[in-house]
């Protein structure tokens, strides 16, 4: 396998590429244009299926919601499906269903995205619906109250009534970070949700849901000129607004290891979550972090699966990644973690698990990966990256987010080369620097000895 340096600037600026024959460097076509109101439109043509997928991402996530209003960005995402003066509640889902399509929304730390997939025959009504809810919404108290209930049910279903309660995604960042933007949960506090009011919902919408804070990506059985014409037709009348300045979301440095023990009244086996603070998104080390996560945590060939599950038998399963599990290694734009979730048998002591874990990680920091380990990890990451680009809506999401963060979708075709540029020395240096104990937080979650009142019950802070 050849190792190529970080791709040239010329490539970063490339506006369009075309797919070639199957080879080891698959590239997807990307064309971009900006409307006068600031809406960026990205198109990738692919006629494999008579379908399309789109993603509109907005530059607002839960990292930026105000203190005392935790969960607001996510509650608002629900509100976006509650209808508009032009298309009252129910129209959005009926029209997409009847178009043969499906839709969803997701709120993450640095963005909120809306995705739709459908046969190509439904592209016009779907673009119309997305433009319609970028103009205004039906700001009714009934809708807000209803979605408050639904969000609470979501929290009960996905967190409070589940074994482990996603503690490696929800609790870990709360322990690993020190400032409100980074250490509150996506769902938020029920009391904060109750306090949210219609004027706040309206002000939030007017501040952030504007074309100049959004990227529309359309992928599939389309041609770029037609999509640009449709985008112009449906979106160009929406005015740009001045978005609030981005606040400082940086963290004071971590200097000591953090350890917490929690009780879980639903889990039958204990588990640990381990989180290491990661370098910033565009740091050269960030791509090395992706390779390290693959080497350590992902799949049956990974170092920790082999060591902890197969060899030492001190764990049942190993999972993890950068910005995991609510996102991937490329979808963040602020402090994030390399997180792992390891379930272990009741008869194994946490200290024995950790000592086996530490010895595997120290060995990576001391010796680096072998040539074949590194080649395998990079090949697998490249192959998985291609998989992210197969289905139109997935590719639309990757392109929309890349453009939202970087101002260009170039990353989509650059990632393979960047991965290839990672060397064993990079991995070794990264492991020594970032996988240090002083840079990590561990939560040990053990089955509760007696029933408690909530899913996660914290016992002690060490």
């Amino acid at each position, binding site marked *: 396998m050849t190792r190529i340096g970080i791709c040239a600037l010329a490539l970063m600026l490339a506006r369009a590429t075309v797919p070639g024959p*199957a*080879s080891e460097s*698959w590239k997807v076509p990307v064309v971009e244009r900006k409307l006068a109101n600031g809406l960026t439109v990205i198109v990738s043509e692919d006629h494999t*299926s008579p*379908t399309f997928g789109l993603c509109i991402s907005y530059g607002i996530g839960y990292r930026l919601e105000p203190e005392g209003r935790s969960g607001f960005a996510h509650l608002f995402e*629900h509100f976006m*499906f509650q209808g508009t003066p*032009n298309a009252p*509640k*129910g*129209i959005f*889902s009926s029209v997409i*269903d*009847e178009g*043969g*399509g*499906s839709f969803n*929304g997701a709120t993450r730390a640095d963005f909120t995205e809306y*995705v739709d997939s*459908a*046969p190509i*025959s*439904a592209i*016009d*009504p779907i673009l*119309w619906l997305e433009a319609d809810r970028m103009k205004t919404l039906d700001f009714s108290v009934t809708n807000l*109250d209803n*979605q*408050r209930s*639904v969000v*609470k*049910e*979501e929290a*009960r*279903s996905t967190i409070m*009534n*589940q*074994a482990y309660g996603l503690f490696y995604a929800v609790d870990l960042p709360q322990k690993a970070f020190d400032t409100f933007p980074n250490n509150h949960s996506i769902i938020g506090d029920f009391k904060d949700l109750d306090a949210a009011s219609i004027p706040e919902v309206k002000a939030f919408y007017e501040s952030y849901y504007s074309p100049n804070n959004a990227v529309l990506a359309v992928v599939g059985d389309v041609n770029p000129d037609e999509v640009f014409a449709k985008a112009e037709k449906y979106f160009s009348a929406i005015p740009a607004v001045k978005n609030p300045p981005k606040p400082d979301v940086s963290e004071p440095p971590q200097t000591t290891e953090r350890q917490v023990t929690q009780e879980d009244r*639903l889990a*039958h*086996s204990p588990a640990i979550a381990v989180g290491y603070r990661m370098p910033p998104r565009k740091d050269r080390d960030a791509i090395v972090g992706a390779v390290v996560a693959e080497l350590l945590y992902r*799949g049956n*060939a990974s170092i920790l699966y*082999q060591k902890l*599950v*197969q060899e030492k*038998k001190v764990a*049942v*399963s190993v999972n993890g990644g950068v910005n995991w599990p609510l996102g991937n290694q490329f979808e963040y734009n602020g402090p994030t973690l390399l997180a792992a979730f390891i379930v272990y*048998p009741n008869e194994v002591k946490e200290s024995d698990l950790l000592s086996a874990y530490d010895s595997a990680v120290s060995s990576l920091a001391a010796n680096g990966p072998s040539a074949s380990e590194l080649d395998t*990890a990079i*090949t697998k990451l490249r*192959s998985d990256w*291609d998989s992210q*680009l*197969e*289905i*139109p809506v997935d590719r639309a999401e990757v392109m929309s987010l890349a453009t939202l963060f970087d101002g260009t979708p170039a990353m989509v075709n650059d990632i393979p080369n960047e991965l290839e540029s990672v060397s064993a020395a990079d991995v070794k240096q990264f492991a020594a620097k970032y996988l240090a104990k002083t840079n990590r937080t561990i939560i040990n979650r053990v089955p509760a000895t007696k*029933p*408690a009142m909530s899913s996660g019950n914290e016992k002690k802070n060490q």
Partner: protein
Amino acid sequence: MTRNPLRRIAVLFALIFTPVFGVKAQKAPKLPSDLPAYGPLKPYAGPKVISSKLPNGLTVWLVPRPGYPKVAFALAVHGGLASDPKDLPGLSDVLASTITLGTKTRTAKQLSEEIAAAGGALNSRADADSVVVSTDVPSWKMQIGLRLLADITQSAAFPEDQVALTKKNSAEELRGQEARSIFLARRALAKLVFGANPYSVIAPTEDAIAKISSELLLKAYLTEFRPDQSLLVAVGDFDAAEIVPLIHEAFGKWSGSQLATAPVAPAPENKVSRNIYVVDRGGSVQTTMLLGSIGPTERDANYVPFEVSDTILGGMASARLGSNIREDKGYSYGAGSLLQTYAETSLLYSGANVRNAVTGAAFNEFWYELNRMALTLPRPDELERAQRHLIGSQALRLQSQVELANQFCDLWSRGLTWDTLEREGSEILNVTLEDAAKIGKEYFPAYKQTIVMVGDKKVIMEQMAPFNLQIESAP
């Protein structure tokens, strides 16, 4: 959001809890005047398949699809959970977990390293009617993918240390599953609806896991993994002329055993009793409710209208259950229904997770919506939406090579061929309001459903008292 194609069952269950949004009123929604019209609806066109049989009896379905530079391979065998010996329920599940952990010539570690070095992973699953092993790799590595797949389908060794480890981890996994309310609800419902029929098993028991050995696994493997009982599917960026010799090289010498083939499950009868079966899960903040009943097989003329009716009830975002229980009442994050299809039957479920305090109120809405399906005609706009939705969703599912390969395996395991998707696509468009009414009357009445609730028993007893139904512990 789900990005990667998941196992079929995971997808089915995600549906219940996927956010759904919908109309409140029970009349046709009035569309905005300037909303552009849909383009013409193209009937669903299935992929072109090159079908053949190797001299040893292996059936091969090839779908060349240029572009995305990968190939998905899946190999299905008849067998699976419904064919397991009665005293070893869930054996196939452990077989699927161990089949990739060593062959006569490769250790578990070598297998996982070789496939990862080719950019793929080895996947395996046991369903009710089949066991499927699969992988997807970049096109230029397809030979490696095929060789590894051939190795595990022809020479799996079930090494004792790997079987011991898997048994231990399967037992842990089972305990983990038992912590999940949806698993408990599904397991209880399958036992109640299917009774003594082998479709009642959805997972291994602790007792069966303890009994399983390398020897038993090898015996089941030799019974099920034989070319005349298997299908190989390849979907992706390849030339048929190029891949056929590779398939012959990898699978041509496979002879398989002469053991009797795995038994096939008989068609079950629908068993109903007017009870509510409760799995007590103390301290739960929600009740998980499932209402289920048996439907037609996919070969039955009623199947397609049944699928359309299920879509109207709860199979799409704007369907009745989500519109009522989530959007109007706010009782749940997601309420819906889904249809699980087996070779010899099908199972319709509807369900939701609801907060404790509205357990009774939410149940009342399920009861009402099921009876509404049974007693009244759907609106014409609902029928048309469901038809178009089903055809469109099929096209969306087949965007993925892996998903298409898996769907073909599932069709084949149910005794159907690849053109089923296209045939069903045109039948969907022919379903009339009268068909839907007939199906509603036959399959959807609330009294025909078996009801399971998982949650705090005390809460459920209080909440369900007004309904005057017998409350019993689930098996």
